[in-house]
């Protein structure tokens, strides 16, 4: 009789223990919101993980991985992306029982475009006269400009921040400057230069 009672109790405990949520280990759920998820660098992103929840007890730890090698702790954090790219933002939450879960989202950071500009001197050059082109007014938010490429409108080209060039024939030439910054973003600008005089003519200036 005792044995039967014992087996009956064990069976009941097994059923109740295995079937009621009270005794089950249910992991927490990581849930968050991001603002903004798309933008131009430098992009400040606010991440709100307070939407996360634990089925039992409360959440004790929020660990953020911003996908660019940086991490942060806490339910609500912010982070600035300084370069372009697509980054995986991961939130991992832990509850009081040490159970965890994670959820991933993406942030798309566009490269801010550089700005190409240049000046030249003299303002009204003649044939056979060296014209100096200066691209030092060009800028980029993505570090440094690594390449300046000049096209002189007659098939000739050169590279460098400051270059000199001499035309042998008068006329209007479109000068195109193309710059490339360290993240590979490019920009271009074109100005038309009027070269005075005929072929090979030295204007004496």
């Amino acid at each position, binding site marked *: 009789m005792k044995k039967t009672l014992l087996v009956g109790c064990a069976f009941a405990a097994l059923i109740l223990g295995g079937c009621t*949520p009270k005794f089950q280990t*249910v992991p927490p*759920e990581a849930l968050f919101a*991001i*603002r903004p998820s798309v933008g131009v660098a430098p992009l400040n992103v606010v991440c709100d993980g307070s*939407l996360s*929840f634990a089925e039992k007890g409360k959440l004790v730890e929020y660990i953020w991985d911003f996908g660019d090698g940086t991490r942060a702790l806490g339910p609500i954090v912010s982070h600035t992306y300084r370069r372009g790219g697509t980054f995986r933002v991961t939130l991992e939450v832990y509850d009081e029982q040490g159970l965890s879960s994670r*959820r991933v*989202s993406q942030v798309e950071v566009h490269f801010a475009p550089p700005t190409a500009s240049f000046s030249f001197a003299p303002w009204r050059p003649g044939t056979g006269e060296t014209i100096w082109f200066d691209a030092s007014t060009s800028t980029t938010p993505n570090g440094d400009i690594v390449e300046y490429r000049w096209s002189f409108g007659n098939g000739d080209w050169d590279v460098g921040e400051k270059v000199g060039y001499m035309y042998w024939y008068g006329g209007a030439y479109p000068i195109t400057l193309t710059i490339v910054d360290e993240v590979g973003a490019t920009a271009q600008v074109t100005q038309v230069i009027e070269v005075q005089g005929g072929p090979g003519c030295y204007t004496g200036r």
Partner: protein
Amino acid sequence: MRLIGGVLAALAVAVAGGAMSLSIGSSAHWVLFDLPSLNTFVRLTNQTLAFVNERVAGDPVPALPELRHGVGLKLGETLGGIVRVGLQMAVTSVNTRTQGSWDAGGTSHPVDISLEASLVAFSIELSLVLIPDVLTVGLSAGGGASRVTYRCAFPRTLPTDWSLPFLPKNEDTTYSGSGPLGSMAVGLSLPLGQGVSVGLEAGFRITSAWVPTAGSAVLDLNADGLGDAVRFSGLWLGVMVRMEFNL
């Protein structure tokens, strides 16, 4: 082996030796459900709804009620005396739904989410009459087939400048699955005469957990890449009507 033989022999004696009767019963149940994976989806959805509700002027979209209890029906037929054997079929169902709309910037963002889980169970029943016509205890074992119907229309772009990695999936799909199950029940009835009795029945169903599928798609409402296992274990309480015919 000897034990099984003994039980079968006792059963045969009990069924054949006692006053044989055929009992047909039906009952309507109030059923408690234990569906943690589906309720996790419900909570994720409600967190999302609450977050957007806070940031959009106008009427909020109501929360999706959790799947906690539903209704069921059971039909059974047993044959025997003090020990009875028979067949039973049970149907249980639980559902939840929310509807609403966010209006922002002259655009309407309608929300309509419904989730229904149901189980059809077929089992072999073995019951023991403790007090004739009054108190019966029973055990059953068999198999069950479940359906989880998920219908959702949820805006892909939220009427807020926040974005969330979890949004309920837009789909209209019925997932199905099956597995073994068992139950135990106690019935207390009041004889009304002419072999008819009415009473109350309380029981507990235990099922294995299975992940419903729809073709090659696996039920994954939480969007965590893992299938959502469902299990229809839970208590029930019902009102029963039974008719008994002496053979």
